[in-house]
């Protein structure tokens, strides 16, 4: 356990040294530049549009960051053989994999939190409102990225960054297409077992005030635990089998 945390800490420190915090600064810059063009407070529906745009921007930024960090993390560790000095100690491969996932997910989550603070600041300036409801969006994006990072890390135990990005994009696509791909309930209703990411669809309740319930949050957390668990388990099995 402590070894897993050491590995996670090393991953976080490495991300910080790779200037990941600049991504947050860049994000803040984009939003700040947009302030003058934001509609004035009090003209009806505009704060909703602002929230929608902000959440979409956060989502894309978080996704790009997740894939940029996770896709090449393990492949480069294996290719440059930096993993040898870690795995030759009393460290199991699962500790190494989980530590890596934990570190990367923490970096992404911290970045999304920082984005949210930036968005809140802009909201306060433009609309005089902290828009605390945005944090539900933050949680949802952070959890969904946790799943994506788990998928990316798992696939990257046996393949290079290109395959990882394609596989992750595929999972995202499939995960958000339950209704189109499976359709309505029928005699063979397997939709219960569909690896759906729909629980993370929070645009309506958060941006348009559709109401945020505890059940919604709970279902997000459960989907996060279930899907990242499955992905990580697959990663552990794949990594356990391969030669380094």
């Amino acid at each position: 356990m402590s070894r897993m945390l050491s590995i996670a800490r090393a991953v976080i420190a490495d991300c910080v040294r790779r200037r990941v915090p600049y991504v947050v600064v860049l994000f803040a810059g984009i939003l700040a530049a947009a302030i003058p063009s934001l509609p004035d407070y009090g003209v009806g529906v505009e704060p909703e549009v602002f929230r929608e745009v902000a959440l979409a921007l956060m989502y894309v930024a978080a996704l790009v960051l997740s894939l940029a960090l996770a896709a090449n993390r393990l492949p480069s560790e294996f290719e440059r053989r930096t993993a040898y000095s870690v795995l030759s100690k009393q460290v199991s491969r699962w500790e190494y994999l989980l530590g890596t996932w934990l570190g990367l997910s923490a970096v992404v989550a911290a970045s999304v939190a920082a984005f949210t603070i930036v968005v809140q600041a802009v909201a306060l300036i433009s609309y005089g409102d902290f828009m605390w409801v945005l944090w539900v969006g933050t949680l949802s994006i952070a959890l969904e990225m946790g799943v994506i990072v788990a998928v990316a890390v798992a696939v990257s135990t046996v393949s290079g960054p290109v395959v990882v990005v394609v596989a992750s994009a595929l999972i995202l696509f499939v995960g958000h297409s339950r209704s189109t791909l499976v359709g309505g309930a029928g005699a063979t209703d397997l939709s219960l077992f569909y690896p759906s990411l729909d629980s993370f669809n929070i645009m309506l309740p958060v941006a348009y005030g559709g109401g945020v319930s505890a059940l919604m949050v709970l279902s997000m957390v459960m989907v996060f635990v279930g899907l990242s668990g499955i992905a990580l388990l697959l990663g552990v099995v794949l990594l356990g089998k391969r030669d380094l």
Partner: protein
Amino acid sequence: MEQANSAIRVDGARKVYKTVGRSPGRAAVDGVSLEVEQGSIHGLLGPNGAGKTTTLKMLIGLVKPTEGTFKILGEDSTSPKGRRFLGFLPEQPYFPQHITAMQALRFYGQLAGVEKQDIDGRAVELLGKVGLDGTERTELSKFSRGMLQRLGIAQAIIGRPAVVVLDEPASGLDPVGQRDIRNLMLELRESGTTVLLSSHQLSEVEAVCDRVSILNAGKVAAEGHIDELLNISGQTSIRVRGLDELPAAVNALAGDVAVSGSVWVFSVEDSAVRSVVDAVDDAGGAVMSLAPKRESLEDYFARLIASARTGVAS
């Protein structure tokens, strides 16, 4: 618990690498067994591609063995728990670029189970020991090949392991560095640590190893003390200086004559040594050294390969 005094024990190690799209190739390691006594230094010698690295990686659990059992101090070393007494230097070690030497050793120290309050002191001590004093705050991207090698040795022994496995420890090191690592290995043995190292250089192992296993084409070709394996009995190698040519009396007895400037190296029967030395003296030359004639590793390998071809068991 049996064989309590063998620190490392490899039995019937075999590895066939999977090659994508092709039928399984020949075994990279084929039935290798090793036994290293506690507190000794054991060399794994062999030409490029002999299977040294593959054998060590299977021992450490980095490569999945096709067959074989691997034990360190009686425990399965392919499982994490069985590696708790182990320190390993990979071949041509490499580390994350953007951290300092100190940060790297702190990280490896934590993984090796060094107590938190001891880590910094231990890291500084080790940097000094491997000749990297004053580089605590240097980023590893600024390290030379030899400096990375030294850091690799430091991370291998940071947890004071009872067994140390070094894959080509001298590679990339200058002569001073090679001497340092030799002394370090002797120091480790002094403190009761067991060392297994691989090399393709005879000079690297002959000065320190208690025993060697010679690996060729994935098999152990010979095992024993290096003198037993390589000394050519009954022959002495002589090096002399200050002669433009060898006296006729010497010339008649000398074999394998090599000359560079006024320095001559040749070998004679042990029984002729006294008369040859006298003859060199009379001719105005000076004897620089007398040593048992030893086969070069290259010759030894060449002979092994030839005997393998003709199917003669050695």
